[in-house]
Structures are given as C-alpha cells and as structure tokens.
C-alpha cells in the first residue's frame, strides 16, 4: 500500500471564473481519524473547491499539501494516483455489470491484452469490503442492488482504486432514512482509517457525523471549527447568513371538502408490473397530505398518472368530483391541477428555454400571453419580472436559460409557474431534494401559504422531517398501496420508518 494520507491541507485556494470569484482564499484541513463536513448553499464554492481537489480545475492561487508536502494535481488521474477518492452524488456505476466488473473498469493493472483479470478484481473487492466493513457481493449485478447497496459499492470501488482520502458529495441524497443511518455509521468507522470529507445540505447529518465543519458562503470560509461547539440552528444561521426558523404547519387542520380523491387506482410501470395497485387517497381543501415511502413504491407512477402522463389501468382520480383518469395532460391542467415534478431538470422546465419562457410553459396559448397566434412578449416579460420578485428567483435576468440556474432556483421557477396558476390541487414530488437550506425554507413557506389559501396539497417526499413539519396527515405508501395514514402531529421517525419498510403498525 502507498503511504496513507494523515493530513490534507488546502491553503488559500482561489479560483476565478469570468466575472465570478468562485473560491476566495479558502483553506481546509482534513486529518485522519476525523470526518470533515463541508457545507454551503448552492453556488457557495463547494463544487469548485472539490473540483480543484479532484484535479479538474487548477487553482489560480493557493497550494495543496498532502502530509505536509506540496502536490500539484494537473488531471483527475493525478489526484486519483495521490489517493484522493471522489464519490459523486450521482453514482458512476455501469448497471449491467457486476460489482467486480465495475471495479475492474477503473483498474488498468488488471487489463491484459485481450482479457480482464476478473479473479483479482473479485479478491480486491472482498478484501476491501472485509477490511472496511462494507459488505459487497462481488458477483452481484449492480442493477439488482438497492440504492443503499449501490452507494456502498461506490465506496468499495473508490477504495479499491486506491483512495486514501474520501470525498463524498451529498452521499445521502438518494437514500432512505434507514440507509442513511447505516451509511453514517459506516462512515464513522471508516474515518478511523482515512480522512473523510463529507459534503451535505443536511445539517442534522453534519451534526451526527462530522467532527469538524467548514462553512462556505459566496466563495469564502465563514466558519471552520468543531461541530460539537455549534447547534444545528447556529450552523444554519452561518450557512444562510440569517436566522433560520424551521417552517412548521401549526394551523389546525381544516375539515374542508375533499378536493382530490384517488380510488382503487391501478397503474403499470414501464416494466409492465402494477406499480400502483389499488391505491386510495383523499386530500381535502386546505390540507397538506404527505406521501411517505421509499422511492420506487409507486410514487413516480402515481405522480405521472395524476398529471395525465401515464395511462391508468383501473380506478378513478377525481378533482372536485370530475373524473381525470385517462384524460390528456392539457385537460387535467385546465381543471386546476398543479404539478411540481420529481425530475425538475427535464420535466419541470425546458432547460434551453429562458426563465421567462418557462414561466408561461402551460399558459402560452392563452391571454394575456398571446393574442391570436402571436406571442405577447411584453406580457410574458412583465409576468416573469413579477414572479421573479415574488418567488425570489435568483438569476441575472429572466432571459437566461433556465437550465443554467441552480437546482433551488429551477425549483422556484417551477413553483412560481404552478402557484401563479392558482391550482385547486398541487402535487409536489420531492420539492426540496438537493435544494439548499435557504431555498428549502422558502419552498416550505410557499406550500403552507398555498394550503392556507384553501388548495389541496399532496406532498411526495422521503424526507421525514419535511413530511412531519408540513403535513396534516402522512400516508405511507408501500408496494403501490397506502399502508397507513398517520396524523402529522402523531408521526414519529420510528413509526414512519417502520411503515416505509412495510411493517404494519
């Protein structure tokens, strides 16, 4: 084995892009035996800093020291050879290959002229998974593994490739609560052997896992020190630059009329099986119903069907008493259904369209945005300017491509469009996934405001804190059915976690 990394220091890293100072003299010290959390809002400079560490960017100023000796990473291969192992937010695994094959992909020493020394890769996987307590079956095809297992394989792969320092970029964003707890536990143990940099939006995880924390804001370090010395609220304040009050649904739940009623719904998934199998659910006016569940239990199919994007096999969807099942999207939109889709980059917006164009995506053919066949650019412009202010969409101008915005701002564009249409019912799928704290707070506030205005809100999420903070009732979906509905105030992490795992209370 190569020399272990006892200490890695980034000293005064500065990186400029045209018109932007992405990192301004940022320093970071990571030591063996500790988890160092790196937190910051979108655009705070985390990614740039990590790209410098990974050898993708060259810093304009500053040095990188490994065990006290300066190093230069000219390419990602340099950084990798020096033991910097990156685990990206999106898994870099080939689903059709086995775990060992995935590992062998990156190990050029196993590539013989016309064949691959898979036996060695297998042994390597077994060794690493043994040594670091990361169970991984070398011969399992990756596509058969759960998301949590894939995350573990990603770790094993990185370690097999010779990582002596781990950088994890939002590793928990796709995991269930149980999987998250499991991963954090394993990372804690890993940190005893090698330094770990943990990038996350979720301050609860940062508190639970890290020994030290560095907070970036607008490219500069605003805090660096022991995690234990700060409360979650203090960290949040440092992160956003202002006091953060967690948004909660405090109002008494109304007993308005049923707005959205789903009965005995059956929907097929792409692979042909019934992903939603006899699901029934009601959402009343002025109510937020949370739909909790491990992703893949029918949420996507249900969302698609509610928006008219997927045929319904059986059952009914009624909005204010009118049947919507099987209707085309246009009709459903006109009936007053709003939808914040899970895939915000390709479904929620047209990425190459400007912000203002995206804000009229559903209404372009209606007044005031068009007159006869012609667009009314002035009206579209004014609409965009008003929504930009109201929804705090941060963009240089409403003429920039929506796809160039950060995830949080894209979500605000979608929310602005959906809410400005005054929907009778809104389906919000994972509205704050991967969104930074400031934007999350804002989005939660908007959902509560919509509830207060008398609309029915169905909130699909895996974030238990989010569900418990916002929902009047929480329905847990398991294998395409509602297993149980729990009043929001009585819900606990444990109870929801059990239900999500399919254990009936």
């Amino acid at each position, binding site marked *: *084995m190569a020399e272990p990394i006892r200490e890695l220091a980034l000293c005064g890293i500065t990186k400029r892009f045209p018109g932007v100072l992405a990192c301004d003299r940022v320093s970071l010290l990571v030591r063996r035996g500790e988890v160092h959390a790196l937190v910051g809002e979108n655009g705070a400079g985390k990614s740039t800093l990590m790209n410098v560490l990974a050898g993708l960017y*060259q810093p304009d100023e500053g040095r990188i020291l490994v065990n006290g000796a300066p190093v230069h990473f000219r390419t990602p291969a*340099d950084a990798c*050879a020096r033991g910097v192992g990156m685990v990206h937010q999106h898994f870099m695994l080939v689903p059709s290959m086995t775990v060992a094959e995935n590992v062998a992909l990156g190990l050029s020493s196993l590539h013989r002229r016309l064949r691959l020394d898979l036996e060695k890769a297998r042994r390597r996987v077994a060794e690493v998974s043994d040594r670091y307590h990361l169970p991984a079956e070398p011969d399992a095809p990756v596509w058969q593994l759960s998301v949590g297992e894939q995350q573990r394989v990603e770790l094993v792969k990185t370690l097999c490739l010779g990582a002596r320092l781990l950088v994890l970029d939002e590793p928990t964003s796709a995991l269930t609560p149980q999987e998250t707890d499991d991963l954090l536990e394993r990372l804690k143990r890993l940190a005893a052997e090698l330094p770990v940099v943990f990038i996350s939006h979720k301050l609860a995880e940062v508190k639970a896992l890290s020994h030290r924390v560095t907070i970036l804001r607008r490219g500069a370090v605003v805090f660096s020190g022991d995690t234990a010395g700060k409360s979650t609220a203090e960290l949040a304040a440092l992160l956003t630059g202002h006091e953060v009050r967690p948004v909660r649904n405090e109002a008494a739940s109304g007993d308005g009329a049923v707005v959205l009623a789903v009965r005995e719904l059956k929907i097929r998934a792409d692979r042909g099986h019934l992903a939603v199998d006899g699901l029934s659910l009601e959402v009343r006016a002025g109510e937020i119903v949370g739909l909790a569940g491990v992703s893949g239990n029918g949420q996507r199919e249900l969302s698609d069907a509610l928006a008219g994007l997927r045929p319904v096999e059986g059952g009914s969807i009624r909005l204010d008493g009118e049947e919507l099942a099987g209707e085309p999207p*246009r009709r459903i*939109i006109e009936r007053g259904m709003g939808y914040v*889709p899970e895939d915000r980059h390709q479904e929620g917006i047209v*990425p190459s369209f400007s912000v203002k164009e995206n804000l009229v*995506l559903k209404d372009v053919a209606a007044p005031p945005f068009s007159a006869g066949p012609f667009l009314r650019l002035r009206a579209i412009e004014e609409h965009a300017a008003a929504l930009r202010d109201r929804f705090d969409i941060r963009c240089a101008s409403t003429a920039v491509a929506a796809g160039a915005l950060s995830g949080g701002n894209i979500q605000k564009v979608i929310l602005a469009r959906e809410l400005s249409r005054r929907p009778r019912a809104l389906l919000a799928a994972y509205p704050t996934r991967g969104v930074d704290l400031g934007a999350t707070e804002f989005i939660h506030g908007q959902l509560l405001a919509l509830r207060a205005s008398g609309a029915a809100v169905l909130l699909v999420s895996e974030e238990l804190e989010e569900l418990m903070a916002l929902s009047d009732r929480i329905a847990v979906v398991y294998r395409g059915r509602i297993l149980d509905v729990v009043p929001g105030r009585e819900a606990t992490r444990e109870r929801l976690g059990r239900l999500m795992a399919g254990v009936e209370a």
Partner: protein
Amino acid sequence: MLWVVSVVALAGLAAAALSSLVLLAIGASPWATFVTIFTGPLRDSFTASEIGVRAVPLVLVALGTAVAFRSGVLNIGAEGQMLLGILACTAVALNAPGLPWPVLLPLTLLAGALAGAAWGAIAGWLRARLEVNEILSTVMLNYIAAQLYTFLLRGPMIDPDELMTGSGTPQSMRLPRGAWLSRLVPGTRLHTGLLLALSLAFLVWVLLWRTTLGYRLRAAGAEPRAARYAGIRVERSLVIAMLVAGAMAGLAGAVEVVGVHHRAIEAISGGYGFAGIVVALFGGLHPAGIVPAAAFFGLMLVGADMTQRSAGVPANMVLVLEGLIILAIVSAGMFVRNPYAQERTARLVRRLFSKGPPAPVAAAGPAAEGDP
C-alpha cells in the same frame, strides 16, 4: 466576443493550412486557388449574381430544416421532398398553360410546396404514430423519390420532342411563360425567388419566435418530456414540423424550376437537399444565420466551378477544401462552448511556452500501488 472571433479565425487558418497541403500534393498553387474561390465570383456581376442563384434553394431548404431540427425532428429528407416539389409544380404548370401568370405562378409554387409537405408528412406521421426513426424514414423516402423522379422524367413526363428527335434527354417539356419567375437583374439568372426566400426567412423567424405555435414546436423539440408535462401535444408538433420542412423543401425545388431551368431536368436538385442541412446547422438553425451561411455556401459553390476553369483544380478537390473549412469552423464553435476543453488547452499551451523544463508532475513518481 473577441475571443470567439479569434478562435474561429485560428481554426480557419488551420483549415487553410491543411487545404494548402492537399493542394500542394496535387501540384496546384494554394494561394491562387483560395483567391479564386473566395474572390473570383465577386469580380464581375454575372458570377456575383450566380451566388444568389445558388443561395436561394439553400436558404429555403435550410429554413425548413431549421424548423424541423428545432422541433426535434432530424429531417434528412429535403432532397426527396425537393424532387416531389419539382414533379408537382411541373405537372401543374404543364397542365394549365392557359392561365394568366398571377394565377398560374402562385398555383405552381403552391403545388410544389404541398407535394413536398405531403412527402415530409409521411415521415412525420410514422414518427409520431409508430415511433419510426425519422432519419431512417427520410433517407429511405429520398431513395424512393429519386427513383420516382427518374421514372417519370424518362417515361410519362418526358418532353415529346426528345422522343421525336431521338436524343432522349430525360427532361420535361418547357413550362409556359406564365409560370416563370421574372429575372431580378436582366442578363443574369438571378430571379425573384431571392425575394421570396428572404421573406420566408423573416416569416420563419416570426413563426418560431413570435407565435404560440412556434413556441410549442420549439418546446417539444428542446425537451419533449417537459412539453408533454405542460400539455403540449408533442406528436402533433412533430407532424406540423415535418409539414413545414417538407413544404419549404418542395418550394425550393419548385423555385429552382420556375426561376432557373423552366423545366424539370435530371440532377436539378444539385445536392441542395443535403447542402441545405449543412447551411441550416452552420447558420445556427436561425434565419438570421441561415441567410449569410447560404450566401457563403453559394460563394463557395460558384468559386468551385471557377477554380476548375481558371486554376486547374478539379471541382471535387474544392469540395474537399470546403469540407475542411466547415469542419474547422464548426469545431471551433463547439470548442468555444466547452470550458473543460478550453482549460485543457490552456494548460497545454502554458506548458509548451513555459521556460525551462516542465514542472515535475506530482503523480509521476514510481507507481507505489500494490498492483503487480
């Protein structure tokens, strides 16, 4: 902006250098050849007008292609759609010789556009209904159109004079004068089709960026999932886009007949159906880019003909040069949009020009990995 211009200029120079090597290899003078290609056509008014003659069908085909590509349909079928347009307009004009020109000419052009649209709609419908890949269907329809064209020109539509005199050149009868486009400049072949092409460029711009239909077409093309989510009927968009693209190509064919040749002849499309696609992409799929791009291509086409005559370089060789130049400029455009490639190049340049031996690479020590 200056940066973009210099990158493109540098790429152009690189292409010129490569082309010079090619030219030297066949024993021609690179300088004389380039001078002929790029300035020869501009020296007198007749050849200059020929640039316009070439540019007209290119603009029309490229406009249709831009509408199709922007709507998410890769229409490679302009060639076939053009041929159908030529056949239809010829048939209509020959069968209604007595009509006065204000009726006959529009009718002739309309026939060309409709036939092209119908041919294009086949591919559009197949894609929308059966998800048949439009590249496959349009290319196959090109083959069918080419054979149909040859069959009709050699058989039913052949000029009876050709049969009588026995020369048998596959061409139709001459169209009645009422169907001709008038000449814009006397003594040249430049015809009023140029004005038609320019007005259509403006109309296509209005369609794409100023109408709700254009908005929906572009949305469906840019991200069909988002368009469907927003209630746009994506399948309908595909068919409309192919109707427009086919109509423009059919019109290009019709204009070529009534403006230049006045009859359907063999090889009339002259590859415009394919060159038009390149013009569309080169012009950034935008009318304001397509018009100058078509003029540039027109210049090169005329220049190529002249080079053959004056500089003794075969026209085919000029096509090689053109290919190199287009490739270079398109690559430069992509380079300008790719920050990673820029960073890599910047690093390479810095290393090449830094004084002294290159700095030691941190990772270049002896491989200390545990791999045997």
